[in-house]
């Protein structure tokens, strides 16, 4: 059985849904971050898949974009973790239910 685009899309959709569920249901800020990373990973899989199954997959393009996305995700995670630490220092908690100061 050769893997088709469909398989990849199903996997990535599942991964996205798991990530979304994690981001929405967990209370701990770090878990939410992990959920978001998972959703990003799902998007990366999509990129690769669409590249691989496009009519003329020229070598570097799809991979390059995905690598960029991963790099940006890493940077984002770094910023996110720094924010979490800053929030923790300020509120002495990382429970997002108690952090509601962003409301207008």
């Amino acid at each position, binding site marked *: 059985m050769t893997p088709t685009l469909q398989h990849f899309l199903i996997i990535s959709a599942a991964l996205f849904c798991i990530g*979304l569920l994690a981001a929405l249901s967990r209370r701990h800020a770090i878990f939410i971050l992990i959920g978001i990373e998972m959703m990003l990973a799902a998007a990366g899989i999509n990129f690769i898949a669409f590249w691989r199954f496009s009519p003329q997959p020229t070598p570097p393009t799809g991979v390059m974009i995905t690598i960029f996305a991963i790099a940006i995700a890493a940077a984002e995670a770094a910023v996110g973790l720094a924010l979490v630490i800053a929030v923790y220092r300020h509120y002495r908690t990382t429970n997002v239910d108690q952090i509601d100061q962003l409301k207008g």
Partner: protein
Amino acid sequence: MSNWIVVHLWLIPAIPLAMALVILSLSSARRKGAAMLAIAGQVAALLLSLTAFWSTLGTPGYRLFHNFTWFTFGEQTLRLGFVLDPLAAVMLLMITFVSLWIFVFSVGYMAEDKNFTRFFAYLSFFSAAMLGVVIANSLLLLFVCWELVGLASYLLIGFWIHKPSAAAAAKKAFITTRIGDIGFFLGLLWLYGRGGTLLFYDGGTGALENTGLLSLGISATFIALLIFCGAVGKSGQFPLHVWLPDAMEGPTPVSALIHAATMVAAGVFLVARVYPIFAVNAINGVTASLTVVVWIGVITALISALIALAQWDIKRILAYSTVSQLGLMMVSLGVGGVSAGILHLLAHGFFKALLFLGSGSVIHGCHEEQDIRRMGGLRGVMPLTFITYAIGMMALSGVPLFFAGAWTKEEILHATSLWSVSRIPHYLMLAGVVLTALYMTRQMIYVFFGARRAAAEHAHESPPVMKLPLIVLAICVILLSIVLTPAWPWLHDYLLGERPAVNLSLLIQPMLFVSLALVAAGIGLGILIYRRATIVDPMERAIPPLFRFLENRMWLDELYDWTILALARFAARLSDFLDRYFWDSLVRLCGGTGQLFGVLTKGLDERGINAGVNDATGLTRGLSRFISARHSGQVQVYLSVIAVSMLALLLLYAWLT
């Protein structure tokens, strides 16, 4: 030679004018210098006048003029000029000569005055302006000099400026004459508009020459009457004569200069100068304008002669006598006796100057006393003044044969008797002769005869510098009679441009006897009445109301005060009131209306427009408050909203495709 003098005629007024300016810039300590300069200026003017006179002698009807362009306006030019004819020549001579002696007299009379130099500056200026009037060949130039004469008289009458009465008299003189001048000005404008030129003589196209006169037509009468208004003001004719007696507030030489030789003569001169305009469309020598001149003259002559009978101020009597004589001259001009009028003007210039200077000598001798009730018996103390004064008095009264005034007066009476309109002026003028002799006799008796009263106690004769002019003028009055007699009417023919001829038979005329009788009656009556006069006038004792009436100058001043002046003052106050309250409140009403509108708009704004806006903002605010409450700050709520909306978008996309 003759041409030179015509071209340089302007020098005659220019020299005294220059002297006036120089004297004005001198310090007031340079008294002698000032007097010398002024007199030198007069001498120079006199010499030039003599030259001018000499050049006119050769040809009868001599008339030369010199016109020049004053300025151009738009594309038009305005020209002025000087004219030399017998009329101008004799006037020049008379004015410069009489002025010269008045100047000399002033050196003595004003010796103690603080503003001695200024006085001579004013005198010179006055003489310059007057000479300008005489030589002007343009009504405009004449008007210009005429106004300057008015200014000079204003300055001179108000010379003792610290005296409120002098200042008031000066103002009165200027304004009263200006009333007449406004008429003169309008007449001038009318003439200019109709004739297109103001030059008197311009080689056939002047205003007084045939073509100019023809273009006037019916308006000539009005123009003449308007110009006559100026003469009425300046020559103190009824009803504008009121300023003249008040003008006696000035120093006596001023009175002599203004009332004898010059300023008051200007009016008569003016009428004589523009006589052709008065005579346009004449029927038998009579025109409407000339008739008006006659009647104004008659009224003036009689009224002022009557008033003179009841005055106590020595100079005021002379002033009223001047007014009366000027009236006589006007009558003469009106009835057609132009040369007679001018001759009387000349003679009057001499003898009235003599009388005024004589009265000045009396006043000076009596330590500035002017009330004749406080004089008396001065004949012994001031013999020379007495003799010269008597000569002047006889000339004025018209005692025949040896005095200049008599011949001219006789000629005027003769002219009035020939007037075709009415004989009344003639008879009234005869009565005037009696009155003149009467009031002069009264004055003589009060001043020089009888007992010495208060002011005469310490009287003294005047210094030689004041005596000399008296003597010179007295001699002139007598000498002048030689060229005025009907037997050898030299001056008369000279003025008319005829060759003089000697005709001794003309010496004895019926009019001579008539006037002799009248003068004798006047003087005799005067002696009879006033022989034993005390400080209460005989007439006052006999008919008190009449005397009061005349003494108060027929209450004419009061009448003007209560009517015209009161009206004018009321108008002034009314204008001010209107301005402050009526026009301004109109403006304020406009402003107020604007303000009211503003208040209304404000109300509408607040209650109407603003309310709507308020509601709209309130709604917006409520809505925003509602939405803002939906923001819990829960990150996961936001995330779920995002997720749900994304899902919804996906579904929408799927549904659409």
